[in-house]
């Protein structure tokens, strides 16, 4: 039997919120209708704290809302100008660090990185474009790995497994040299549903199920009409 959950109280930008002990700031905020932007997070996976887009501030200290547990009386700063600008700058860094040619990308309109750029009104990144040399692994039967667009969020490494629990994706090296690898034999053996899941779990257009690109018309894609996070904000209205 699980113990009854103890409710605790905290605030986000002054808004009174309720949570349960053990919840992260990000989860608790979401339950209270407050959207904290995040990229590497996927509900159900172990949080990675990799992208830092969910950075909030508590008592003058910045922390990743996806890994930090909420505590009684915590006063969280979220939607404040300097934090929002820092998050925007992180998104801009991800754009210049890879090669993001959105007009040619199958994920455009459904991409979480692009959606955050829209939400933050990124018209141009403040950093110089790096134009790194990255490869495209297109030889696999089911899955195409487009390294130009990978933001190393590790969702695929954490969450895409075969039925007998073998990891399909892995990571090589560290920091800016980090590279995602795919076991093409395992990827080719993934049932259709899981192959699609692998694509959907990648926040960007890096993991693609081959032969299904551009199926949803412009205007009907996930982020065509409403900013990312609108669902969270609407849920509590």
């Amino acid at each position: 039997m699980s113990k009854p959950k103890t409710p605790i109280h905290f605030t986000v930008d002054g808004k009174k919120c309720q949570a349960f002990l053990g919840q992260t700031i990000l989860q608790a905020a979401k339950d209270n209708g407050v959207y904290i932007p995040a990229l590497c997070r996927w509900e159900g996976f172990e949080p990675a704290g990799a992208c830092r887009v969910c950075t909030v501030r508590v008592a003058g200290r910045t922390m990743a809302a996806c890994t930090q547990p909420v505590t009684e009386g915590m006063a969280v700063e979220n939607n404040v100008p300097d934090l929002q600008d820092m998050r925007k700058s992180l998104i801009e860094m991800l754009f210049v660090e890879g090669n993001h040619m959105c007009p040619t990308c199958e994920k455009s309109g459904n991409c979480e990185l692009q959606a955050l750029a829209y939400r933050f009104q990124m018209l141009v990144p403040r950093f110089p474009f790096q134009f790194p040399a990255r490869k495209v692994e297109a030889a696999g039967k089911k899955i195409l790995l487009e390294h130009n667009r990978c933001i190393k969020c590790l969702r695929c490494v954490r969450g895409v497994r075969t039925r007998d629990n073998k990891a399909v994706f892995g990571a090589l090296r560290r920091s800016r040299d980090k590279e995602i690898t795919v076991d093409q034999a395992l990827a080719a053996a993934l049932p259709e549903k899981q192959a699609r899941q692998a694509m959907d779990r990648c926040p960007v257009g890096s993991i693609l199920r081959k032969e299904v690109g551009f199926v949803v018309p412009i205007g009907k894609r996930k982020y065509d009409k409403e900013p990312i996070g609108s669902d969270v904000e609407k849920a509590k209205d």
Partner: protein
Amino acid sequence: MSKPVIATASLAGCFGCHMSFLDIDERILALVDLVEFNKSPINDIKTFTKPVDIGIIEGGCCNSENVEVLREFRKHCKVLISLGECAIMGGLPAMRNAIPVRECLEEAYFHSPTIDPADPKIMPGDEDLPIILDKVYPLHEIVKIDAYLPGCPPSADLIWKALTSLLEGKPLDLSYNLIKFD
């Protein structure tokens, strides 16, 4: 009072942004009343004949001529707008940026499938041709840019909104559906 003056150019772009500009449909009649066009492919005026209020450029810089035209625009225009993905981040032409220029040219002139192996291998190198840059540069990495309008192409509504805001001296207030990168 004389009308505000507009100039436009397409550098390493596909003219899609200009097409989108023309997509403002009947609003073009209002625009003719509002502004006067100077150097632009729309009216085929080749050289600046007066100072310009708003310069609009599509396409990034892929060769020495692009850089020259861009600098000339900066010199003549009070406000310079970077229009579209190619102008803002290099776009499709920038897909060559991680490949050495020589390799790109050899692919195009020596190894492409349409080259007859029996033909002499000639790479254009006439001194009258603009020199290809080491990579394709976004406009703001070469001159100061005052406003960015993303999209491939930017929608006619976005271009119209930006132009009318500028002409009325209002700040550019872009709604969610106007900012798109594709």
